[in-house]
């Protein structure tokens, strides 16, 4: 039995209804289903991939390749919150590198590392379409994605403090 289909019957019907009823249309549900699954525990489990493959009528390998291709999907358990600081050119011209470095220094970790309580990972990412409000970052978690713009190290640390207490 497909555990995913059982658990999210309504949501999955809504997703499938967006696309043509044939096999090609079913395959289109693979990305929305992955977003749905990730909302639960922050990553896509092997079991969930198997269920998605079944619903979309494609192979497990094909599902796994989608997880691997797109950067917002995770296939392993990760920290609860990902602070993803944009360091692309426009943000870098407005001090994003310095911001990221000072933020990490304050937390005592390096870029890509997680706070000792395992809750917050600091990452450097590509353009997030917030170039005029740099330094900026998004917080990615099972709760969704949230933008934080016009940041200072102080405001970011305050937010991180709150996230770690959640």
């Amino acid at each position, binding site marked *: 039995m497909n555990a995913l289909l059982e658990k999210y019957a309504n949501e999955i019907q809504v997703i499938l209804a967006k696309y043509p009823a044939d096999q090609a249309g079913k*395959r289109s549900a693979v990305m929305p289903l992955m977003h749905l699954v990730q909302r639960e525990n922050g990553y896509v489990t092997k079991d969930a991939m198997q269920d998605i493959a079944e619903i979309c009528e494609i192979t497990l390998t094909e599902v796994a390749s*989608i997880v691997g291709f797109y950067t917002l999907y995770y296939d392993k358990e990760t920290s609860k919150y990902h602070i993803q600081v944009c360091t692309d050119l426009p943000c870098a011209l407005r001090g994003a590198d310095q911001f990221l470095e000072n933020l990490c220094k304050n937390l005592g970790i390096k870029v890509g590392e997680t706070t000792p309580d395992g809750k917050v990972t600091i990452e450097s990412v590509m353009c997030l379409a917030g170039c005029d409000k740099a330094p900026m970052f998004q917080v990615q978690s099972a709760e969704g994605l949230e933008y934080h713009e016009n940041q200072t190290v102080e405001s970011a640390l305050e937010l991180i403090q709150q996230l770690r207490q959640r």
Partner: protein
Amino acid sequence: MAEYILLRHRDIPGIDQIETYRQHGGFEALRKVVTGMDPDDVTNQVKASGLRGRGGAGFPTGLKWSFIDGQNWPHYVVANADESEPGTFKDREIMENNPFQFLEGVAICAYAVKANVAYIYLRGEFWHIAHQLDQRIAEMEAAGLLGDKLFGTNTSLRLHTHLGAGAYICGEESALLESIEGKLGQPRLRPPFPPAVGLYGKPTIVNNVETLTNVPLIITHGAEWYRSIGTEKSPGPKIFSLSGCVNRPGNYELPLGTTFRELIFDHGRGIPEGHTIKAIMPAGASSSLIVANEEALDTPMDYESVPKVGAQLGSASVIVVDDSVNIAWLINRTVHFFKHESCGKCTPCREGTYWMMHLTDRISRGEATINEVALLHNVANQIKGKCLCALGEFSIEAVLTGIERFPTDFENIITKSTS
């Protein structure tokens, strides 16, 4: 500009609410086309307006619509809301604040090309916008503006959002279509182009968010009115996303043909104190670097004039670079972006961006000899004209023009390391 045409929320607070939008003439254009215009006449009016694609290519929108294959059904419309070019943040402002004008534009386009289903492909980071749009689409359905029997006619139309998941390449239209089909976001070999063979192999029109947002007002006020804005060959308003070394970055809606000087110094309030302007990238990280001399500053920002100073207008994401920036550092940053975002399908882009990254890493760290700058130039030239899509082709623009137009920046970094 006297009145906003695209960023109308700046004039009309609350236009993101369906009632307010209707009070200001919202959905009248949709009513007009669905109840009284032949689809081909809608396309002809957009053609007559001279509207050109705002996503970067500047292709005439009405002409694109007229290419839809009438022998193969069903037809689809896809709005490209994958906005991911470094320096571009205009579609986000439209969708967050003036969403109904955009959605009305999608609906009119669908009517014109006889599509009953349209998808809005948003980058995964626009998660919150997708949720807002879903709610607004539901409101439109409840108001009889979407769904079956629009305005009592036999026209039916459904809009759906589709979220990406962090891949710049999906802004390329054929990769975007692959992504909706649940495949890796990798570009297709073209031709055939989407108006002939698009989503699920069916005729499809892919347009940028800003492009579609122009459409309702073209229908309401007519092609002649639209042509009174901008220049003869580049009519209409454009949202310029201004970023980088400038006092007041942000989105500025101005007529096409406004000069760089007016954008950067009047609207953007110039360069931070103590510095002078050095270079301009008019089309985000995909752009060539223009030397910011007097001639360049006085150049009108339209599709014809920008090439005369050695770049393209593209999506009009103007990144300003001042004299504190070394161009060798800058191209290292843009190359890292393209290396990360290369989809890996074609060899020149996959391998080329990889080697450009290693070379620019060494050069910007001051570890390279001047020969390696020549090698970098050579590698970039070998990528040119050989890639499956524009991502690879654009990855070399800043590299080539950086080396050619700012040679002393490279010499300085080399001399510093060898002295």
